[in-house]
């Protein structure tokens, strides 16, 4: 797989409004450096993330998808993150089964106080995606 010149991975991060979004904010206000490869979409809960969002993101330009939610037990809606974990586990395995690198989907728990952790996750994921290269399988054809 040849990586295009100057290519940088893009990550779409679905961040839970109550924890991870604030965590990402904290990373910013604390001036913690991390790769600029991430685009954050705020969701009310990690349980809001429909697996089709993941495929859509990969089809339309993302190279990886991060779903970030509250730690188990901390969910604002009690258990949304635990439903999300089951659903995304299955999603990840199905993606792999259908020929998409499972590493492109990651679920992680980031609390509002874990700015460092958010930065670290993005760093790790960026490194993984740099190795994988851009999504080859699913890009839809654009206009000429």
């Amino acid at each position, binding site marked *: 797989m040849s990586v295009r010149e100057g290519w940088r991975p893009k990550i779409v991060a679905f961040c839970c409004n109550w924890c991870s979004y604030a965590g990402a904010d904290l990373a910013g206000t604390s001036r913690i450096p991390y790769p600029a490869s991430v685009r954050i979409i705020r969701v009310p809960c990690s349980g809001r993330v429909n697996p089709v969002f993941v495929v859509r993101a990969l089809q339309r330009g993302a190279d990886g998808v991060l779903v970030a939610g509250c730690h188990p037990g901390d969910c604002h809606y009690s258990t949304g993150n635990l439903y999300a974990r089951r659903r995304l586990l299955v999603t990840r395995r199905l993606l792999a089964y259908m020929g998409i690198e499972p590493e492109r989907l990651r679920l992680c728990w980031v609390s509002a106080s874990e700015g460092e952790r958010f930065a670290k996750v993005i760093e790790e994921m960026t490194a993984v995606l740099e190795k994988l290269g851009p999504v080859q399988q699913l890009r839809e054809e*654009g*206009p*000429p």
Partner: protein
Amino acid sequence: MKLVRGSDMLRWLRRCGEGRRWVVPAKEDRHWLFAERDGPVVFPPDYRNATVGPKGWLLPRSEPILYYRWTGGRVSVTPAQGWRPQVIYGVRPCDLKAIALLDSIMASEPWPETQYLTRRAHTVLVGMACTAASSCCFCTSMGVHPAESYAADLMIYPLQGEEYGVAAFSEVGREWLAQLEGEEADAAFSPAVPALSLPMPTSLEDLPGWLERRFDDPGWQRLAWRCLSCGLCAYLCPTCYCYGISDVDRGGAGRRVRWWDACTLPDFSRMAGGHDPRPTTTERVRQRIMHKLAYHPARQGEILCTGCGRCIEYCPMGIHLPAALRLLGGDGR
């Protein structure tokens, strides 16, 4: 008709079709489909007709019509170029007749379908007369003959063993045939007899009227209650051509796409606001059969069914034309 050995015929076809895409029946995992291949092939004896006919190579399952882009409040439009010169090889007479029907439908004024017509003009159709019937075909009941050429440029008639007869039916066909070295002769070809003969309640000419008089017949419900509202029959049908158009918009730029639709799907006739003039399977199944056997013949003088038998063989719930005619005729359960 020229007589030729199979291997010579394939060599000749390959030479004539150089530079064109070859679309040939190919068997993949028990199913015959028309697929792109390097060139023409000899059919094994179990080839009767493909599950999915050649329709999609003239009227694709979906295709862009145009691309657009908004810049500074103005839209620029680029028409799509979706054709390549091609040869479709091994087409059976039922499908050839269907292409002839599509040709006249797509050319009809005031809005001829230029994309179809362009693609069609760059297509050479090599037909193959039938020597064996598939288990559900009934072409003769629909007035279609298993050795007729219809839309074909060239027809191949399998004779004995390795011997084939080839005849031309168009300008291109004659040009190609002139390049074939072979003995000019009249060979007797005895085509296959279709497997089914439909229980026709009336002559083909009177069928539209006969059906129109049975528009409100309870037989429709007795047939259609088990329809599951998928689009299988319409998509496999060589003459079904209904399509829909939608935009695939990607923020300020996108494409307008045309895709197959089917009157059996539940949202086909649903209108803005939610009203649906064909709310149940009864109306939808009736519409599909009436369009083929009554409305189209009444308007254009041609039945829109060529007896390929695909809808009979593949409907998962066993809904088919013979059953419709039987139920409407008052016979049956």
